[in-house]
């Protein structure tokens, strides 16, 4: 009897063991190493020197670029996350409509997410060209003189936002999968009760997909804060450092200035910021995320602590 019970207790651990093993072997080691590196001055080509908290102190008190990049990245995230999630949700709703030809649209919306970032950056570089780019040409057709997107520091950030919205297909696909799998009976029952589409969306769809909303929210925050590839390829952080995101700042510190210890400290600071933010969101999620398994659990009378 006891063995059976022990096995039962062990079961969840056995299920998650692949990840735990992988974590210990492939992730924890490098992670701890990078933390240790952050307490050293390590110019890659020669010996590392211990500096204790020196890197962190320098970052917060002497390095103006640290604050600038941080603020810039926060600003970008504040725009990128709601915008992209909104677009993804909107598009997902659009392509779940039972109309003819929707399959083609679905594929079209997803294609950009499939193109390699190198090519995407080059193409958008052409489109956004101030003098000869297609975007400004189209704007001129409706009487607007487009700015020099990639040269004018006042507009470069928007250029990045525009280009990164291009990759919204993945989030859209995740939302779509969730929405499409909502049992039709729920909608039909609502229709019988006389609910209109808006009511159906807010009353049925949205609550049920809150788990994926949480997922997309957290993952898009993480990717906004870590944004590097696009900026590196499209603007190199310019013009005039107007798109010098935190990710670029860290990368330059590591590979251009060869200050690997400092860059590790940069990375850990960002890591902590994201961690705190995410923990906060998670904590709040019990108020608005609706897991059917839990609810049913409560219904069947099992006592469960409110999270």
């Amino acid at each position: 009897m006891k063995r059976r019970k022990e096995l039962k207790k062990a079961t969840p651990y056995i299920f998650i063991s692949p990840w735990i093993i992988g974590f210990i072997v492939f992730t924890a080691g490098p992670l701890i190493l990078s933390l240790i590196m952050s307490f050293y001055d390590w110019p890659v080509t020669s010996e590392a020197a211990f500096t204790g908290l020196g890197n962190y102190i320098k970052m917060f008190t002497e390095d103006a670029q640290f604050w600038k990049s941080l603020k810039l990245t926060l600003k970008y995230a504040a725009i990128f996350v709601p915008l992209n999630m909104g677009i993804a949700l909107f598009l997902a709703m659009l392509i779940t409509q039972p109309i003819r030809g929707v399959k083609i649209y679905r594929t079209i919306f997803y294609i950009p997410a499939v193109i390699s970032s190198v090519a995407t950056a080059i193409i958008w570089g052409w489109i956004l060209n101030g003098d000869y780019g297609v975007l400004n040409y189209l704007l001129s057709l409706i009487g607007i003189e487009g700015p020099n997107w990639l040269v004018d520091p006042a507009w470069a950030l928007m250029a990045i936002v525009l280009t990164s919205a291009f990759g919204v297909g993945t989030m859209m696909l995740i939302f779509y999968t969730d929405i499409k799998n909502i049992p039709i009976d729920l909608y039909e029952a609502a229709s019988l009760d006389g609910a209109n589409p808006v009511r159906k969306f807010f009353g049925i769809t949205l609550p049920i997909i809150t788990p994926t909303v949480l997922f997309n929210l957290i993952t898009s925050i993480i990717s906004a804060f870590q944004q590097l590839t696009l900026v590196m390829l499209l603007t190199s952080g310019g013009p005039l450092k107007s798109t010098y995101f935190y990710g670029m700042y860290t990368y330059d510190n590591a590979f251009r200035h060869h200050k690997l210890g400092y860059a590790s400290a940069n990375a850990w600071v960002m890591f902590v910021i994201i961690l705190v933010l995410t923990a906060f969101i998670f904590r709040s999620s019990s108020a608005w995320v609706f897991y059917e398994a839990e609810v049913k659990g409560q219904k069947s009378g099992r006592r469960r602590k409110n999270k």
Partner: protein
Amino acid sequence: MKRKIGLLLALTLIMAALLSACGGSDSGDSESGGKTKIRFASWDNAEDLDSQQALVDKFNAGQEEIEVTLEAYGDDYDTKISAGMGSGDAPDVMYMWNYPAYYEALEPLDSYIDGEGAEYKDNFYEALWAYNEINDTIYGIPVGFTTHALFYNKDIFAEAGVAEPTDDWTWDDLEAAAKTISDKIDGAAGFSYQLQADPYDFEMYLWSNNTSYIDDAGNVEGSLNSAEAVEAFSVFQNLQKEGAAITTEKGGTDEFRSGKSAMYIYGAWSVSTLDGDGMNYGIVDLPDFADSGKEAVSILSSSGIAMSRDSKNKEAAWEFIKYWTGEEMNKERIGYELSALKSVVESEGVMDDEKSVPFYSMLEKSAGYTPASFLVEDWGGLSEDLELALERINNPTTLEDPKTVLDEVAGVH
């Protein structure tokens, strides 16, 4: 609970042991089948790689004891080299130009060079050594170089009825010509220059005007923001303001090829591309600053081959380095790399090619100058600020006053 953790830990250790065992083949060995293996890293991109691979194969074919593998890092060269050095796994032999940043992980080569006899060293153009050494220690053997010169589009000049540039031109001459061309020819600007210019390259304009980023004592103040330096920075801004010049995203080759600009300053890298296009163009020495009292000088973009300090096969690596920088290789590379060896230049009649002459002429004029990057301790910080300064001065939406910007930078350093 404890038993579970113990079990998991044991599992993990076993997995880790298994994993390292299953990777234990000789991919990390430097000897296999008796031949010494050398890793050689190159930054060339796809276009040139095939020819490079062929040259490496040739070496391997003629070698009984050494086998070289070519690793192509392309655009991300610095990242890979840094990663390799940081983990003690740098390639044995690698292309190198940024000695200040990497020299501490490189093997000093003076003893190897001396071992080859005086003739060996003398065959290289003197000016090149300064670009491959730090603190009087040589860390790389020059493999090729370029200086910068003025390219011009003969067809556009003819169309605008403007006299072609000569080696004696001053910046005033250039300005006049550029302005005329911009006015007369639709869709073409007289001159173009890079918006996010490389401070390393830009220093040559200061040199041409009798100043530099730092003075002999290493001070930035008084040098970077001297009147001569301000003049050098202002020349470009003025050209833009007058509508005689445009800024380009990269070096300017694309704009030159498409006829968007009639003149630009660049190294010899684009010669083969332009020839391939069939463009009707010419090259002359850089324009002089009228008041400087001397001829313009150019920066050297010299690439060298260096050896890793941690290499386990230094003798073998040196053999390969000699081969790659030797006469035979120099001859093979004519056409896309200017030869660093005097003997090859002579034997192959390089000076008969009018496209090569300006670059060698600039080489001769530019001996004796060492870039600030080799001298300044915090070049990383200074160059970043200089980059930003160049942007602020030349970005069409800002066009800040050069003196103000340079004073700011000098104040910080």
